[in-house]
């Protein structure tokens, strides 16, 4: 029985894991860097250990420091979240040798599926279709010219160990090939300590569709349905939804079956995601398998009424999944908007600074997974995602209306956020109609930016005027006077 879990992560995912642990009566151990002293994962955990300076290679990626906290705290299990050490096989092996439970994929599965080349080999062996490209990593950039030519431009250069758009480049012509491979390789080396890259065909109007699976030690492999993740900027997802407005029941079934076939092939355990690309002709290809919890897992949780982190912990503890494949009957529609500290009007440039004010989203059908607290400084050291905003409603139309309502209510003051751009995407005809692909956001971005700020209303003008007037030392009382006190006293309290 797991009694105390060290969460080797930060931000919203650490908070999300701590919450389920609390609900299961499991003690939690947080680790934090200089920059994260008042991050919510530190505030909400039972214990918190400082593990170093702000750069992640000096803290969250420092295996030795985390090993020593495991020892000092007496944690009997580790949940790595996503990113950081979640797919670090050496770390997983080391803790398991010490008798600590690893709440993650088996190291063999991470090795096989985390590496795109061997993952593609597994797919091939199991007759799961693959995107044309090099299956082996590129040894010498010069060797790929012929392959690229045979596939046809544009092609994609991708990191072997990668994910999240890092170490990825689109190449439109032969002349950019060498430089793009070098750039992707260098970025991949820094992000994943593995600089190997490969190339593959770049598809027409592709959809990024992924299948959530769960596998336990009792031989159960369950598909929890798909997530549509095609709204992306710079290869990073920004809005996800389930069910996908694009795929049909037949395709859904095929993808689920393929995902489970791969999970079985690699003796998978725990929560995993199999990603596919589906082109405009509904022809689909295996893309990669993420051998960990995924950022966008909440939309799957909501439509299925389950808690994936609870299942992960129970599976790691040797228990079976708490439901069967027949119990999986998704209800309604869920949409997630990732709230990034990024300026959507300015090519998604990261934005930093203190969270000076916050009006939280709330009300029916709203789930907010925050990784920040008012007063906290958003730093340039980590991923710019502040929170995940998820809504649920009976159908897609109502879910969009709800997301629109929530985005229009909530306010985060301080860093520039993706709230305005999410609002514009949600309201754009492409998203509304459900006809969009991974290229859509890039194509409509100028239009969205144009839409964002059309007029200067008297309300906006007057607020600026007032603030400027005050800046000149002319003070106007801003606070609400307690008129109720005087009027109340006058009139009695009836």
């Amino acid at each position, binding site marked *: 029985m797991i009694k105390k879990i060290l969460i080797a992560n930060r931000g919203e995912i650490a908070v999300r894991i701590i919450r389920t642990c609390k609900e299961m009566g499991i003690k939690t151990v947080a680790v934090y860097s200089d920059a994260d002293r008042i991050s919510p994962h530190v505030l909400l955990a039972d214990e918190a250990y400082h593990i170093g300076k702000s750069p992640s290679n000096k803290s969250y990626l420092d295996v030795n420091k985390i090993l020593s906290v495991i020892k000092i705290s007496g944690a009997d299990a580790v949940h790595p979240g996503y990113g950081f050490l979640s797919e670090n096989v050496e770390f997983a092996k080391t803790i398991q040798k010490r008798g600590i439970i690893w709440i993650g994929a088996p190291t063999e599965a991470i090795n096989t599926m985390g590496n795109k080349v061997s993952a593609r080999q597994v797919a091939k062996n199991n007759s799961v279709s693959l995107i044309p490209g090099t299956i082996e990593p590129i040894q010498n950039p010069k060797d790929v010219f012929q392959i690229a030519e045979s596939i046809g431009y544009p092609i994609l250069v991708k990191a072997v160990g990668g994910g999240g758009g*890092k170490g990825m480049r689109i190449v439109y012509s032969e002349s950019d090939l060498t430089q793009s491979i070098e*750039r992707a390789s*260098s*970025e991949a080396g*820094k*992000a994943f300590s593995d600089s190997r890259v490969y190339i593959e065909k770049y598809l027409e109007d592709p959809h990024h569709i992924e299948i959530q699976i769960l596998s336990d030690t009792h031989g159960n492999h369950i598909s929890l349905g798909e997530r549509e993740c095609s709204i992306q900027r*710079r290869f990073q997802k920004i809005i996800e939804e389930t069910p996908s407005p694009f795929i049909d029941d037949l395709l859904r079934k095929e993808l689920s079956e393929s995902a489970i076939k791969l999970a079985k092939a690699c003796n998978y355990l725990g929560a995993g995601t199999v990603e596919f690309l589906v082109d405009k002709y509904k022809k689909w290809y295996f893309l990669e398998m993420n051998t960990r919890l995924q950022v966008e897992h909440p939309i799957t949780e909501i439509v299925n009424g389950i808690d994936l982190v609870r299942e992960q912990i129970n599976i790691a503890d040797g228990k079976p999944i708490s439901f069967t494949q027949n119990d999986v009957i998704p209800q309604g529609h869920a949409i997630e908007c990732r709230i990034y500290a990024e300026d959507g*009007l300015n090519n998604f*440039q*990261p*934005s*930093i*600074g203190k969270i*000076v*004010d916050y*009006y939280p989203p709330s009300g029916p059908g709203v789930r907010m997974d925050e990784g920040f607290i008012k007063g906290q400084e958003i730093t*340039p*050291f*980590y*991923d*710019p995602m502040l929170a995940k905003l998820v809504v649920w409603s009976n159908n897609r139309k109502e879910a969009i209306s709800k997301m629109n309502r929530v985005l*229009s*209510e909530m*306010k985060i*003051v*301080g860093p*520039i956020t993706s*709230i*305005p751009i999410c609002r514009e995407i949600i309201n754009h005809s492409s998203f509304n109609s459900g006809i969009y692909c991974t290229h859509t956001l890039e194509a409509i971005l100028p239009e969205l930016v144009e839409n*964002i*700020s*059309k*007029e*200067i*209303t*008297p*309300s*906006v*003008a*007057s*607020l*600026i*005027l*007032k*603030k*400027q*007037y005050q800046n000149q030392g*002319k003070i*106007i009382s*801003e*606070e*609400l006077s307690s008129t109720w006190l005087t009027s109340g006293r006058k009139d009695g309290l009836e």
Partner: protein
Amino acid sequence: MILRLTQQNHSIDVELISSSPFIIKIKEKEYQLDIIKISDNLYSLILNNQSWFLSYNEKDNKRFISDSKYESIIHIQNELEIVLSKFGFASTEDDKIGEIHASIPGLITKLFVKAGDKITKGHPLCILEAMKMENEINAPMDGVIKLIHVIEGNSVEKGNIIMEIE
């Protein structure tokens, strides 16, 4: 007090008529507003019974104001600047043309040019790494690299000048 507010290509002049009650004038029309501060950066405004729930933020010399429909990003000119602009003088707040600034704190991991290089608009100048992403900075114009203020491996603060083009 008069201010010129600019958002993208759209400008209006707004005049403070009275501070209590708070009355402003835009395009010869007066508006009386009920403005209440709620907390640090949140405001409630009521204008002709229309309710506006606004967040206000100053960042990088711009004003960001969100209501339930729009995000406004406003640049301000005061009376002096309005007069100067009438005579064709640019606002002093603008960046000098040809200066390349760091848009975010980060690390210069690669330089693609050296002083004296002749470049065309779009040519990659350097890589600025921040928040785990490599951001390629490209030339905003054709020109010649005049001066480079950093070397590879330097970390830069937001707004630091990286290089100059002429």
